[in-house]
């Protein structure tokens, strides 16, 4: 069966990759909870994931909030339902767009950088050198990045939520002529704890996925500069796809009846 062969081979390769990734993830998580912990490294990674991503994520959030208000206005005017705009903005931002867009931006910025850095360390034997110096790369390289991702991304998303809602407010007030006091009152009325919390849970999961993909592809990169390039691409692509998949399942977990 010459047709079945390549299909089977691809399928087996896929299973192998999935198995390796799962194993890697379990090892990485186990090392997050076992000493030694490196606070200095965690701090440095939190700066990289959180602080330095603020401008990118902030810009993404504000324009998303603005376009949301504008689009809903032009759309809802047909049903004279313009008053729902604050509701639409807050729900979309906190539930969906805040975590997903922040996750994707961080995947491009941070996941890529992690894969490139760890990949370079792999191909220049620095990871081997770590092992010979009684230092486990899972503890020294992977765990600090995972911890930073899981802790920092929710904070980043919370800030993105606020900036995004503010973007919607700006357009509604200055372009669409809403009353500021009513808009704010409506927004506060519509904020639901569950919406925000689900968004933050998503953010933590996305933070884990992005850093895990960056570390995994970097750690397994092979063959010089080209290998590092491939690892970087794979890290960003796989993290983005996983973010979108997990986004659906977490949403279902929180909101499906």
């Amino acid at each position, binding site marked *: 069966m010459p047709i079945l062969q390549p299909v089977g081979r691809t399928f087996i390769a896929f299973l192998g990759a999935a198995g390796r990734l799962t194993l890697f993830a379990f090892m990485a998580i186990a090392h997050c909870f076992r000493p*030694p912990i490196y606070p200095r490294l965690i701090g440095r990674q939190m700066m990289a994931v959180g602080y330095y991503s603020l401008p990118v994520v902030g810009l993404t959030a504000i324009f998303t909030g603005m376009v949301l208000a504008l689009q809903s206005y032009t759309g809802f005017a047909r049903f004279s339902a313009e008053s729902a705009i604050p509701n639409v903005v807050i729900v979309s931002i906190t539930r969906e767009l805040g975590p997903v867009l922040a996750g994707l931006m961080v995947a491009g910025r941070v996941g890529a950088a992690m894969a490139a*850095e760890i990949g370079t*360390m792999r191909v*220049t*034997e*620095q990871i*081997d*050198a*770590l*092992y*010979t*110096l*009684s*230092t*486990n790369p899972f503890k*020294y390289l992977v765990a600090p990045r995972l911890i930073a991702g899981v802790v920092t991304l929710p904070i980043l998303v919370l800030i993105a939520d606020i900036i995004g809602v503010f973007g919607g407010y700006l357009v509604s007030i200055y372009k669409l002529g809403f009353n500021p006091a009513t808009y704010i009152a409506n927004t506060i009325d519509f904020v639901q704890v569950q919406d925000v919390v689900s968004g933050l849970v998503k953010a933590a999961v996305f933070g884990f996925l992005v850093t895990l993909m960056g570390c995994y592809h970097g750690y397994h990169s092979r063959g010089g500069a080209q290998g590092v390039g491939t690892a970087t691409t794979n890290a960003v692509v796989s993290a983005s796809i996983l973010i979108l998949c997990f986004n659906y399942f977490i949403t279902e977990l929180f909101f499906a009846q």
Partner: protein
Amino acid sequence: MNDSTPTNQAPKIQIRGLKKAFGDKVILDGVDLDIGQGESVLVIGGSGSGKSVLLKCILGLLHPDSGSILVDGQEVVGLYGSALEEVRAKFGMLFQNAALFDSLPVWENVAFGLIQGKGMNREEAKAVALEKLASVGLNEDVAELSPAELSGGMRKRVGLARAIASNPEIIFFDEPTTGLDPIMGDVIDRLIVSCVKELGASTLSITHDMASARRISDRIAMLYKGKIIWSGPTKSIDSSGNPYVEQFINGNSEGPIQMQVRSL
């Protein structure tokens, strides 16, 4: 073939039937080698013959396909987790390309094993690092530079300082003097010899430089086609009676070892 170790104690490292292949390319095909307590063994062999792979197998950085490696009588093939980490703590390794951490300054590279591995505080570790750097001929100004700012020979020396910083029991030197000027090469050779004397360390080195080989080793083993084809005391290398060894140490392109090259 002469495989007796000079000491009567059990060897520090005993390798038997070690095999390693990448895909269908067989690199090590049943290597047998002993390294005695406090002994300096040197492996010679053509470029690409698998010398670096041999070192990495012993360190557990590559997983051999079969065979046995005993370190102090303990089997390390198949060992993992904290048991493997414990064995690795006995080793220091100078990598062929130095493998310095480029996110850390030079002195932190040297002090790395002390700070991370042994939990020494940073000031103390830095003092030790500066001392080790001085012994490889690098001064305090270099200590603050990043590895990317060093020349190839300087990187090698930093790698050497890092390998010996935590006074390991066993030290591997993968081409310690390649890329150094002849005088510095001699300095490094002396340093290696004094390390062995002072620390009582056992060493396994690789080099292509026969002058250096004679200075730093007690015993030489030749790796060819995945096997140790000759091993004997360094003094007797010139009277080995083995045509492969003779061709190799004389650097002769004519002989039983055929290089896979086509003339222009």
